[in-house]
């Protein structure tokens, strides 16, 4: 059974464990009908002029021997262009760029203002890849094995093909069941001169490496094509899938050329109780934002100078981490400072064949304006507010809560009555209905 790859994203994974399965660019093939469970795949792309480094992570959690993936690439890759990276680096990048909820505490209205800030950062679940694989003999199917390598725990083949029939037969004979829907897509890639990168797990090497999960595969190449192939990922008919794409460039934000790139709603005040269920909130909000855009937008969740953050969901990556992800232009050792020539963008795509028929065509912009998905909660002051300013504060608070409830309902589509009921539980002595005694302000 073929598993598509383009990635499920982490935010949803972390925030939404029930997110649809996904994988990398390409498809993810499993032998036999093993029920696979792989939900969160992430892709990191480093882009500098025509140079691209891609790191692909997935949460494949099945038997390693059943793992395989097929990724179209613009060029034949040499051995040194392929590497096995560290999941931790991607996890760190994921945490650093994750949408975040922040909280403030209302100051004592009867005293000079003091503001406290804390940042609980949502964390991605760790990723878990897997697999299996052995390269098979070449066939007279118009399929040519351009190269064959063992890199880390992976056996990798670089294939070129003349006809999709041949490629599909080759894949089938080598134990991959490809869905019928994949065939025209393979044909299209072949006609465009793309090569195919096929990876399986070398069980012997895997046992040497140990560990439960598969490490991310990395490829580096030079091509005018700045794109992410997602079409094979839609071939299995599993409906909407999520992909989180992290890009690292010298100059600025990355956006899609052939789809609309929108910013995720951000910097919005939401009720305090959402803190306990930020994942559910974010998932609902993302789903609604995606629907409102007709399912056809790519969302920017984070765009920031890699040297700093505010508030930080995680520390910025160190230079060594960045280099391991392919940012070859930063020096070894140390840590980037504000204004560094590395700019990170986190794009979240929810796609299927209908809404995203084409691969993502990307472009690097000169936009270095910082943006983050940030949601604000505010604790009311709970001390004694028996002063004139305290009364005013109380009125403002009721208005604020009303606003927060409405905003939350608009963002998520949740029932406003339920939202108000939940807010009432945490209202701590404030009458949420805002019914002040009629005589309260007669003589004010």
């Amino acid at each position, binding site marked *: 059974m073929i598993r598509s790859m383009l990635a499920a994203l982490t935010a949803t994974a972390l925030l939404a464990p029930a997110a649809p399965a996904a994988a990398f660019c390409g498809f993810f093939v499993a032998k036999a009908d093993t029920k696979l469970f792989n939900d969160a795949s992430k892709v990191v792309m480093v882009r500098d002029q025509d140079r691209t480094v891609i790191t692909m992570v997935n949460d494949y959690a099945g038997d390693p021997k059943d793992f395989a993936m097929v990724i179209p690439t613009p060029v034949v890759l040499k051995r040194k262009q392929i590497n096995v990276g560290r999941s931790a680096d991607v996890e760190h990048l994921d945490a650093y760029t994750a949408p975040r909820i922040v909280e403030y505490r209302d100051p004592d209205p009867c005293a000079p203002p003091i503001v406290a800030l804390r940042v609980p950062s949502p964390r991605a679940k760790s990723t878990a890849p897997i697999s299996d694989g052995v390269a098979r003999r070449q066939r007279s199917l118009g399929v040519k094995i351009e190269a064959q390598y063992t890199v880390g725990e992976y056996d990798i083949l670089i294939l070129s093909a003349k006809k999709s029939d041949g490629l599909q037969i080759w894949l089938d004979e080598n134990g991959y069941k490809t869905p019928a829907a994949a065939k025209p897509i393979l044909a299209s890639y072949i006609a465009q001169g793309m090569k195919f990168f096929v990876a399986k797990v070398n069980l012997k090497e895997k046992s040497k490496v140990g560990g439960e999960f598969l490490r991310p595969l990395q490829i580096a190449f030079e091509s005018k094509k700045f794109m992410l192939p997602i079409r094979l990922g839609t071939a299995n008919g599993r409906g909407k899938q999520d992909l989180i794409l992290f890009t690292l460039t010298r100059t600025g934000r990355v956006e899609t050329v*052939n789809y609309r790139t929108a910013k995720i709603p951000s910097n919005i005040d939401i009720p305090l109780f959402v803190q306990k269920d930020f994942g559910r909130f974010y998932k609902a909000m993302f789903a609604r934002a995606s629907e409102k855009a007709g399912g056809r937008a790519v969302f920017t969740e984070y765009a920031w100078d890699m040297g700093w953050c505010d508030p930080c969901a995680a520390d910025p990556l160190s230079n060594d981490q960045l280099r391991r992800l392919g940012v070859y232009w930063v020096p070894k050792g140390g840590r980037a400072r504000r204004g560094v020539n590395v700019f990170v963008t986190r794009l979240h795509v929810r796609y299927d064949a209908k809404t995203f028929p084409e691969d993502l065509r990307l472009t690097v912009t000169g936009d270095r304006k910082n943006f983050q998905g940030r949601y604000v909660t505010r604790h009311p002051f709970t001390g004694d507010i028996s002063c004139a300013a305290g009364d005013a504060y109380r009125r403002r608070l009721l208005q604020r809560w009303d606003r927060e409830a409405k905003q939350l309902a608009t963002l998520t589509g949740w029932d406003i009555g339920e939202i108000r009921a939940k807010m009432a539980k945490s209202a701590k002595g404030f009458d949420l209905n805002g019914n002040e005694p009629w005589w309260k302000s007669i003589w004010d």
Partner: protein
Amino acid sequence: MTDAAYDSPAPSVEKTRTRRPAGAPAPLLAPLRDPRYGQIAAQALLISFGVLALGFNLSPLAALAAAAGALVAEYLGRWAQGRAFDPLSPLITAGSLTLLFRAEPLWLFALAGLLAVGSKFLIRMGGRHIFNPAALSLFILPLTFGGAWLSPGQWGALGLAAIAIAGVGSVVAGRAARLDTTLAFLAAWAALSFGRALYFGDPMSIPIHQLQSGAILVFAFFMISDPATTPPTRAGRILHAVAVAGLGFWLQTSWITNIGPVWALIFAAPLVGVLRIVAQPRPKET
């Protein structure tokens, strides 16, 4: 886009102008019948729609900067030519730029306007400018400055309807004669998109998606339709539109640029300039 119109105002306007006694000072603004008002209004609507409804990454100051650059260039150019200043054409150029061009330091917008309109006065052949002013800036600046780029994908389905309505409206109201260029370009572009999909065996959802590109519609309605930089005859315009579509499609699908038609329009411009001289010997003002 259609900066071209400026130098060759609609017939009604020309009539008005010729009626003016020689030596009388020209009014600053053209009469309201001038179709360029419609175009400016259409562009202003689109820009507002993009910013308000689609969340364009665009500050109002950027639009002002582009307009300022364009107006200054127009003023200086007209002054050098000894002609009266007319703000409409540079405003249309600035509107076209604002729809597609994006830049990080704001002054790049001003430079884009300055360069676009400046080119009208500096790069000329047979008494006419040869490059579509807005297209020239869209071509040159992203190649020159890291902080300048184009955002062709930012419209979405709603935006497309808006562009189509505004575009058709302004073309029909203003210069119906130039609709041939727009339609020929769109037809050729559609044929190429569908042809490519058939050749690759791709589902038709791909070319349909590709045709829903806001940049293509903006280009078709506001740029290639510019009468000053297209051939004077209908056959010539259709040939030109098809050639621009073909070259642009190739440039875009071979990943040479993300905005193939704009590049193609620039590459084809010198040829159009020559054609104009050869095919249309009647003298033109400007």
